[in-house]
């Protein structure tokens, strides 16, 4: 998952090297052959070529085999997981039956992971706490909203028991309805949950658009939602155009099992990282030249990691573009309820409502992890205008279904529209406050943020603090921030940003009191940079 290269590719067989490349064993075989061939023709070539091919085949097979049966990988993995008593069985690699290529690509040690995951891990190992661990790593790399959890908890404490019992209060806890099988894309009563979710989405979009419950497929989180859509809209090896920088998780969620390529469409700071239709056109043409079949454009709105909103004109342009190319549009609107700026959020659904367009190419991803701060409950939404997609997705959702007690809880919570509207309002206020405080504090250090109206983060320019204006320079700065300042931030390279030096800092996992600590920590790095330059 490093920038540019596709981790998947490493597990695919390499093409056999032609003899001209300098390559130890190959050269030792080929050079003498070439020497022999030069002076002769026909018959000799006819017998030597098969020999050469045979040698290349051997090399090809050797390379192809090695990622799967790497004994050192399994040995290191076993050391970290298995207690001694159970490791008696960890004998020679010959006892290891091979795994699939897909698995082999991922079972390698952690240094293959992107910095995004590496940072999360290091933070988890030494987490900051104001009193218990004041020198720990401060987490600014996780887009989780902890600012309004108290509101959700309050509601649950008051209402959870009733929420789980449902209608039959006299009967007491009724597990029967809760526990038994249901259609996999739905609930105890499918209509009840999708109604509640549709209503919630409408409230999130502040009434500008109403959502149809029958166009909803529920999944265990937004992660499977985007994967299922990928399986439905594209075949292996096809591609999505994705304005970059983009959410690092998509590299795993989309490329891994559905094997869809992501073609970044780079955006620039001069445009505040907004994408243009012209850039999409260029990327589309280039992809075509490379022989890639583009099946969709994937955007996030509000954007992750920048936090900017896509305006109406661009949405119209986007719809025209995908219609002209006859491809799909996926709009990940998971932060729609988490806006904190003055600009009004416009969902692609709103634009579609107003126009007589062919909607069957538009799909929205949503979920409760961000706007409702409940990532643990695993509730994601595919909202599609395409009946065939809904059919296929609802069947695929069986592999990623939402737990029944959670569904039951949601029906209650989401139908409490008064609570929801109060929650959304208060949450937005708190987000706005923290955002402003963070931005102002960072300014003190000379760090500027990109314009942002939504999401849980600031997209900041720290390029003046990196030594060499390159991905490597950025990585060094990221490392300094993690090891010296002990703050975990997400480097732009993990998000496929083409301009080095940009970082994503999340402000929703801290309290106001933490801000001066964060600034003081970051100052260690910015000051030391200033002093040595």
């Amino acid at each position, binding site marked *: 998952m490093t920038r540019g290269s596709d981790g998947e590719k490493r597990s695919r067989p390499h093409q056999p090297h032609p003899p001209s490349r300098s390559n130890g064993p190959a050269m030792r075989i080929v050079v003498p052959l070439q020497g022999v061939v030069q002076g002769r023709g026909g018959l000799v070539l006819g017998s030597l070529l098969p020999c050469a091919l045979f040698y290349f085949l051997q090399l090809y097979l050797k390379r192809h085999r090695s990622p799967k049966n790497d004994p050192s*990988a*399994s040995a290191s993995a076993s050391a970290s*997981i*298995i*207690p001694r008593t*159970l490791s*008696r*069985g*960890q004998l020679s690699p010959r006892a*290891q039956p091979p*795994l*699939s*290529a*897909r*698995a082999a690509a*991922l*079972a390698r040690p952690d240094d293959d992971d992107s910095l995004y995951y590496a940072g999360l891990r290091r933070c988890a190992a030494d987490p900051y706490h104001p009193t218990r661990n004041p020198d720990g790593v401060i987490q600014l790399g996780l887009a989780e909203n*902890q600012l309004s*959890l108290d509101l959700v*908890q309050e509601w*649950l*404490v008051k209402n959870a028991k009733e929420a789980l019992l449902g209608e039959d209060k006299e009967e*007491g*806890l*009724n*597990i*029967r309805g*809760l*526990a038994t*099988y*249901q259609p996999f894309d739905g609930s105890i009563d499918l209509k009840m949950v999708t109604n509640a979710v549709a209503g919630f989405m409408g409230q999130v979009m502040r009434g500008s658009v109403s959502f*149809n419950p029958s*166009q909803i497929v529920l999944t*265990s989180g937004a*992660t499977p939602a985007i994967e299922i859509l990928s*399986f*439905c*809209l*594209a*075949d292996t090896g096809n591609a999505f155009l994705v304005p970059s920088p983009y959410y690092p998780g998509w590299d795993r*969620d989309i490329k*891994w*099992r559905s094997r869809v390529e992501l073609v970044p469409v780079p955006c620039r700071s001069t445009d505040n990282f907004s994408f243009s239709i012209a850039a999409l056109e260029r990327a589309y043409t280039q992809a075509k030249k490379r022989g890639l079949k583009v099946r969709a454009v994937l955007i996030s709105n509000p954007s992750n990691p920048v936090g900017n909103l896509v305006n109406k004109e661009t949405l119209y342009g986007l719809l025209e573009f995908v219609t002209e190319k*006859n491809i799909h549009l996926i709009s990940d609107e998971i932060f729609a309820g988490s806006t904190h700026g003055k600009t009004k959020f416009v969902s692609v659904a709103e634009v579609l409502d107003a126009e007589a367009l062919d909607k*069957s190419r538009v799909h929205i991803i949503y979920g409760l992890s961000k706007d409702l*701060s*409940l*990532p*643990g409950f*695993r509730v994601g939404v595919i909202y599609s205008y*395409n*009946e*065939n*997609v809904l059919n*296929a997705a609802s069947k*695929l959702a069986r592999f990623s279904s*939402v*737990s*029944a*007690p959670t569904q039951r809880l949601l029906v209650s919570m989401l139908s409490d529209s008064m609570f929801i509207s109060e929650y959304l309002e208060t949450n937005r206020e708190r987000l706005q406050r923290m955002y402003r405080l963070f931005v102002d504090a960072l300014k003190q250090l000379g760090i500027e943020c990109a314009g942002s109206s939504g999401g849980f983060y600031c997209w900041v320019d720290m390029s003046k603090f990196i030594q060499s204006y390159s991905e490597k320079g950025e990585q060094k700065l990221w490392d300094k921030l993690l090891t010296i300042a002990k703050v975990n931030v997400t480097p732009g390279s993990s998000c496929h940003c083409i301009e080095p030096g940009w970082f994503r800092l999340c402000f929703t996992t801290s309290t106001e009191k933490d801000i001066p600590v964060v600034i003081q920590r970051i100052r260690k790095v910015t000051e030391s940079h200033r002093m040595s330059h």
Partner: protein
Amino acid sequence: MNKVVGHRVELSEIATSNTHGEDSPYFAGWKAYDEDPYDPVNNPSGVIQMGLAENQVSFDLLEDYLEQHPEASNWGNGISSFRENALFQDYHGLKTFRKAMASFMEQIRGGKAKFDPDRIVLTAGATAANELLTFILADPGDALLIPTPYYPGFDRDLRWRTGVNIVPIRCDSSNGFQVTLKALEAAYAKAEAAEMKVRGVLLTNPSNPLGTAVARAVLEDILDFAARKDIHLISDEIYSGSVFASPEFVSVAEIVEARGYRNCERVHIVYSLSKDLGLPGFRVGTIYSYNNRVVTTARRMSSFTLVSSQTQKTLASMLSDEEFTKYYIRTNRERLKRRYEYIIQGLERAGIECLQGNAGLFCWMNLGPLLEEQTREGELRLWKLILHEVRLNISPGSSCHCSEPGWFRVCFANMSLHTLEVALTRIYDFTQKSKTIKSLIN
């Protein structure tokens, strides 16, 4: 909704294929039931669902427990514990819950095998667990060998997105449908001939749809076969807690331990709470693997199918309550046994024989004598007749890939005793009639 069907914009092959198999009789019966479901009061002539392997006989035990232990679903334990739960999306899963699962799995096996909580990977149901393992152990075009008859859902769950093939290991009634070495070798050879790389054997133990626990000797043979061919063995033990008569259930975990964990990196167990606890809606499944790389990979891949933290929290305390789980397992077994005996008697009265079963939530019954022609078509005609005339949804053996026509799976635990009684009466009436009107089945 806009009724424009996506003619103009293309979907993927996966979206448009029918590998989901929902056009098969197995699912068609469900549809018929959905349209006209039996209800003792409101719809006494409706279709009785006997094609759904669900356990409803022991709900009251769970309800009682949860009522007596409200702390399981209590959110008032302070903001920090709520915060942890609401935000928890770690694919390692709650440690307390994994420990509880491991302990529960040990109890089911009467302490004859140990389970390490760190080898447990949680998934949203066994469906997801089986698909995940397939993604990890096999590449598109490869093959998994599965003994027939097998659970119809496998055709979809193991093949649809993975692109992996199923090659059947043919079993027949001559030996009670047990797997033989000959059948294993034949299946392997068939896959090879079709140029499919065999990656593993997937066994359901106890078997669905047979309702029998696999004999120890057969398990040993299968494990040896897997070792010889250097392939994997997936043991889906989802019905392990529903063994109600002898012979005792033997888990592949016991055999692995007995062999001192030698050569066990090829063994993986799938489990779930859907059958034994009767909680399919909770979506709790697990992969237990003796292979570290599989554990690591499965854990990461489980991001696509995490178990709700709320559910983990709710069930963790219940499953770690050993007194309760012992009691539950014992009582559930007794009740299943009684149900089984009841249905067997009822079927005997109607002149129908079943395979001698000792586990699961269903019987494997032989309606061969009622077929006017011993073919798949004959079986399907009989199935349709039973669905539309007798108003019972049962599962035809052909949808389970059974090589002998005439076998049907009939579930007995997903309804009240009264409903079962009604069903058995209908069957009795039908068999009496059909002795005389066999020729009219067309």
